[in-house]
């Protein structure tokens, strides 16, 4: 059978076409949705190119890329400074076996190369795929260097008792004690989100890191306006009406994402974030979500250890990087630095 030719197009303003595709694919995340991409574009000032690849008449996959021109062209999915760890390629077409998938993926990547080459010339490309894209070999075969990263997932299809008993004993005691000491969880709104944002910024300052101006205020407000309350839930841990911890959760299809928050709390004997996570899990399970993802189990050993106490499974996702055009000669010597 002859292979259908792959054609890459930039979606102009057809948000409906885009969102329908993202919702249809089992690899699409909330970060891929049209409104989210537009908020990221505004925040990062990197130009968005929502790419759709067609195999004949049918959509094979989508890839939102963000391009920043700073002397060199930088092509990202997702761009830095958008509080996102992954985004990347979303396949719509289902494949009955690995061979067919690889062949289509490979064909798409060759076309993507041509697209990048003719539109941006030599550039730095970084695609960070979601954990739902498991076979990343075609990226390696066309010259990307890949690095594994991790996120955490709790299977909400297990019963609540099992999830609870899976927690580390210390966390279980922390939750009981925190509740006893009068801390409670409320589904908050912008005020609570803004407090969490300020707490995160203060935490950076305490660590000697200067956060960017207003620490994502406008970006988060933009996202809040678009996604709250349908896809965004603020789990605020409070004592006497005052927010002392919590997190921002995102819902999309069968996944609940613990996205940002859980700022370090320096209160002796009280663990508002532990309680917020547990209440978040209970809430997500009750609403029928299948997975509770605690995002980013990455390079920070202390934070990874903290998240591990909730007994999640680490899930791999990959960051793929390459230099194109005349920069190609630097791929080998800079391989390690560019990941």
């Amino acid at each position: 059978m002859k292979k259908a030719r792959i054609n890459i197009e930039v979606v102009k303003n057809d948000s409906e076409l885009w969102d329908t595709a993202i919702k249809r694919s089992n690899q699409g995340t909330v970060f891929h949705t049209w409104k989210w991409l537009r908020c990221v574009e505004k925040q990062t000032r990197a130009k968005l190119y929502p790419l759709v690849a067609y195999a004949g008449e049918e959509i094979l996959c989508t890839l939102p890329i963000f391009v920043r021109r700073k002397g060199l062209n930088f092509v990202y999915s997702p761009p830095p400074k958008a509080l996102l760890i992954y985004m990347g390629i979303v396949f719509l077409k289902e494949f009955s076996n690995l061979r067919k998938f690889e062949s289509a993926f490979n064909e798409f990547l060759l076309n993507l190369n041509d697209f990048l080459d003719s539109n941006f010339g030599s550039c730095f490309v970084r695609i960070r795929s979601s954990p739902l894209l498991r076979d990343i070999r075609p990226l390696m075969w066309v010259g990307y260097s890949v690095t594994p990263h991790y996120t955490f997932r709790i299977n909400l299809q297990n019963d609540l008792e099992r999830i609870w008993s899976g927690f580390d004993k210390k966390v279980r005691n922390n939750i009981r004690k925190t509740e006893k000491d009068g801390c409670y969880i409320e589904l908050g709104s912008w005020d609570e989100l803004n407090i969490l944002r300020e707490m995160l910024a203060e935490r950076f300052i305490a660590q000697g890191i200067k956060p960017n101006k207003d620490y994502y205020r406008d970006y988060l407000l933009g996202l809040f306006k678009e996604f709250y309350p349908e896809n965004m839930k603020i789990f605020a841990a409070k004592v006497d009406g005052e927010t002392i911890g919590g997190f921002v959760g995102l819902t999309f299809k069968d996944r609940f994402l613990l996205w940002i928050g859980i700022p370090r709390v320096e209160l002796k004997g009280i663990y508002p974030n532990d309680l917020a996570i547990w209440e978040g899990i209970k809430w997500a399970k009750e609403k029928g979500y299948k997975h509770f993802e605690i995002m980013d189990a990455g390079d920070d050993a202390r934070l990874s250890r903290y998240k591990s106490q909730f007994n999640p499974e680490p899930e791999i996702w990959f960051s793929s990087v390459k230099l194109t055009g005349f920069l190609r000669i630097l791929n080998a010597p800079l391989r390690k630095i560019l990941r």
Partner: protein
Amino acid sequence: MSFDLVIVKEDEKDLWKEIVARSLHTHLFHTWEWLKLAEKYTGFKLYPILILKGEEPIGIYPVFFKKKKIFKLAFSPPPYTGMSYLGPAVVGYESLKEIKKLDYLHNIVKMADNFIFSELKVSYFLSSLSPKLIDVRPYKWLGYEINTAFHYIMDISSADEVWKNMKKSARENIKKGIKKGYSFEVKGYEDVDFIYQVLKERYTAQGRRVGMKLEYLKNVCKKLNNNIKIFICKKGDICLTGIVALCFRNKISFWIGGAKTNDTYSNDFLHWKAIEWASKNGFKYYEEFGAGTERLARFKSKFNPELVVCFSVKKCKPHMKLAESIYRVGRNYLKI
């Protein structure tokens, strides 16, 4: 409770065997017998590292060490042994909670790293990990470079299902093999010579050399006779092709052999017959090593396997990075 590192001695090999049996990260390569043969034939010194938490063994890490001129090198597994992976193995990993998994693995890796770089004063360490060990964060935290590799695995509980799902052209090749009167034989370790010779010829034709010594291969097959099967495809009295398979727990792994032959059918026929034999003999999984290279991955995927990701980790001193780059250039471009 504190963690301790000890080196397992010959008279403590039963303890090693017990740990190998209790960890899902182990393969036949981790067995004491195989490790000792690798030590004998490579000239590397084996350090069978055992990590204890208090009195309790929590994991092992077999490390091979050699001083080569000014370089001190360590590997797990060592080169030219055909051991597809080795690395650490944690006891009872699957039943641990995530926090303990991370804690045990982190301590095993940290203590082995300290032993390798501070006591052995190694300047280059490379370790290929079990596909069951996908969490390489402890290595990242210790500054290792991570490389991603792939293997294939296939559920062979039902041979009929495998037959149904394989590529049409492979099915046709197998049928043609049957029609041509090919036969399938399960042989003893004595027949490994034939597989080695075919492999050597194939490598020579490609301008490469087989790094593994025949003597070593024969001894591995002899010593681990109960876990190794030799499958041969014949036409009449003539051997066409063969494979050496490793049997460990409920998995059979296609190890070496199956080199390209003059006819198109014999290897597909042999693989299929080996799968059929394994399925009949109670094996649940069929493993194929190395699915990361495009050409080989396509060839090996004809039986419709699933992909398994695995990692190799590397840490070296700056001068070794330079030496490694020179070695790669020499090997790839100058063929030295």
